[in-house]
């Protein structure tokens, strides 16, 4: 296992370096001068020149790349142009907010989807199935921000049990502040997973070993949750891993609606103001997280199905 993890990490290094190189050059291809973005329309030519000089933007791109790459190898993501501070510090301030939202959103979304998917499969073709598959279709069709806005209207404006602004503090508990965005994310994430669970369960429920289990007189609970769900987990784990990976950078809509600025919002803001080091840094952090999540997903495969070795070989 250790050898496997080490090999995956080593394989990931060229990917991360590749991401850094691509992002470094692509972000500089976007029209717009960082000095202009930071100083605004009032800035004089002299002020713009001074800003560019101070931040090394007047150097040729290959020189800038050399400087940035040397720093990157040492773990330094450079100085943010818009925050006037190390990009790493700015990212690390936001990362926990994104992490807790991603973790709880995907966790509750997965729990709900497993329940809904199993029910839909068990009651295939009957009203619970129709209801839940309709819910899943609706969840996949509705944009995440729309779900978020409805949660705000119902839970914050009408029922007043959660705050509109989840980071306000002052009498608002941790869970209260997290409930809105987590609920929106869970609802959105559970939609695809419900359908995946349902179809995966339906496939497994038709297998001979399920019939054998039932004929042995095992209870339906044991049949469904031990024999069926256990064997249906592989595609579900894949989707959960994918969701977790994409939510880190992709929850910007919810971060905006619930005023919970995380890594996704930071990245978009950084692009708007052409904060090159911050764009590079944020992308690298997201890339590293995705690589880690993929490694964890591969390991989980082996746990849920011992036939799959961590090397990827079958017994």
């Amino acid at each position: 296992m250790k050898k496997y993890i080490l090999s995956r990490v080593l394989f990931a290094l060229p990917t991360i370096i590749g991401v850094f190189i691509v992002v470094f050059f692509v972000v500089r291809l976007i029209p717009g001068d960082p000095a202009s973005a930071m100083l605004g329309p009032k800035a004089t030519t002299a002020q713009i020149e001074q800003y560019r000089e101070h931040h090394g933007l007047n150097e040729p791109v290959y020189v800038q790349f050399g400087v940035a790459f040397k720093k990157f190898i040492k773990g330094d993501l450079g100085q943010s142009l818009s925050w006037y501070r190390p990009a790493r510090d700015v990212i690390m301030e936001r990362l926990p907010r994104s992490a807790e939202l991603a973790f709880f959103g995907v966790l509750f979304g997965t729990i709900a989807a497993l329940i809904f998917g199993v029910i839909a499969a068990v009651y295939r073709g009957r009203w619970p199935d129709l209801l839940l598959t309709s819910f899943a279709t609706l969840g996949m069709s509705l944009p995440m921000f729309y779900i978020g806005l409805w949660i705000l209207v119902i839970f914050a404006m009408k029922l007043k049990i959660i705050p509109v602004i989840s980071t306000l503090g002052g009498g608002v508990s941790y869970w209260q502040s997290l409930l809105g965005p987590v609920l929106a994310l869970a609802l959105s994430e559970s939609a695809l997973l419900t359908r995946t669970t349902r179809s995966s369960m339906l496939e497994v429920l038709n297998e001979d070993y399920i019939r054998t289990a039932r004929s042995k007189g095992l209870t339906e609970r044991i049949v469904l949750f031990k024999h069926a769900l256990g064997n249906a987990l592989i595609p579900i784990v894949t989707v959960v891993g994918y969701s977790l990976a994409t939510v880190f950078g992709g929850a910007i809509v919810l971060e905006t609606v619930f005023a919970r600025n995380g890594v996704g919002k930071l990245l978009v803001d950084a692009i708007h103001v052409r904060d090159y080091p911050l764009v590079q840094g944020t992308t690298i952090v997201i890339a590293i997280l995705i690589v880690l999540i993929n490694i964890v997903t591969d390991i989980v495969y082996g746990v849920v199905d011992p036939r799959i070795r961590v090397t990827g070989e079958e017994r």
Partner: protein
Amino acid sequence: MNLKKVLALIVVVLMCSVLLTACDGGGIAEPEDKNGEVVFNLGRTWEEKSWDPASFTQLYDIFLAHMVYESLAKLNVDGTVEPELAESWDISDDGLTYTFNLRKGVKWHHDYGEFTSEDVKFTLERHADPEVGSINAENIHLDNIASIDTPDEHTVEITLKQIDVDFLTRLALYHGNMVCKAAYDDKGLDEMKLFPVGTGPYRYDQGTPGTKTEVVRFEDYWGEVTGNIDRVTATIISDENTLYSALESGEIHLYQCFDKDKTVEFKEKGFTVNKVPFNQVLYIGMNMQHEPFTDPLVREALFCAIDPEVFIDDLYYGTETTVGSYIPPNSKYAIKDHFKSTYDPERAKELLAEAGYPDGLDITLWSINDEISPPPANITHSQLEAAGFNCEMQLIEAVVFFDMCRAGEAPLWLLYNDTPPIADFTMTRYMSASYPGNNWSGIQDDEYDSLVNKALNVETEDEKAHYFAEAQKRLMSLNVLYPVATMSWDVLTTDKLGGEFVVRGDGSFHLYNAVMETE
């Protein structure tokens, strides 16, 4: 236990946990919190990226900083300058030496001792330090300062190289916010960007960049404070819809907005609308070096196509006014009643025909795809279409727009002209030497250049006002910048806020004398 019971149990547990977690904590934030503090919550879409005054760029980015920092002088709404950290000042007969008598007993926040003349010297001189990377050295006219002397702890003598009749106003703006030398020596530049030390009525308490910043009342503040607000929090809410929801639900108590529809809506809901003078004008600009605006007839036709009353009535509900010049009326030296609308769409068509475009003229109107530019851009587009222009509208990202205009690539645009209280910047930007660059309109006019140069080298304010007025008239005669209307901030505040809402001439507002009603 059968499957149905298991599922029912899971659902019940989930629902209970949701309800319990939601009910935990006892509700949403109220003005008076658990510690007995009166808390006032501001909502905003942007924040201080750095607390270092050398990095401050725009007024509305830094409104919390106004509560923390102070300057030697402060600027009133009527443009007069009053002492703040300086108790008084004397100006030498030659107008070059300013002697500031500093206020005694002024304490720095966080136990950094007393404010002294060394702090003044340090504050001004650090703008020249390459390590600091100040973007405000030019705004202070640092190059014009010959020397800064500190004969004693409470006296500062600043000698200028040449007379600057607006030197005091320059120091009264955010560029002149005083910085604590002892704190800087102790914490260094990087820490200072996160942890401000000022002398103002509120001191920095805590904050999470990108989320929320909190300032608390400074008990040792030198000035008189009549308000009851102990803590001010400023929360970043990027989405305006969320912001308005938070305002309506009472979670935030103040938001400054440009959206006049929202102003009307919230006024009807009982919120107070505080007008804050903002030195901004909505204008339409043309680049006279760019076809077809090289032709004076085309520029005149465009002036005849625009009806500012439509903007004021339909977009601003009569809350804004027409302007007499492209310099905002709250700015010093603005001429207030010179420019008059020449709206006449039929005349515009005639002028276009005369210029060689009897079937209409194809033009592109550029603007920014932000929250406030598209509505006036739409009106402009309609009016130009009605007057014989075949107008295409392009809304693009701000940074790309600015670069395009600076490079002289935008022939026609609509934007807000944000002018500091001193009009020097806006006046000098249209001088011939600034093209391409800040002179987006490509104005190359010797007479204008001469008038502005004279204004910048005078010895009295009256002389400067005279030359700047003549320069504005000259520029307006070129028909290249169409000033449409004023643009002010509406600061929406809860009806629980009473007392004095202090507004200054730089567009900042202050809460130290405001009284928040508590339950």
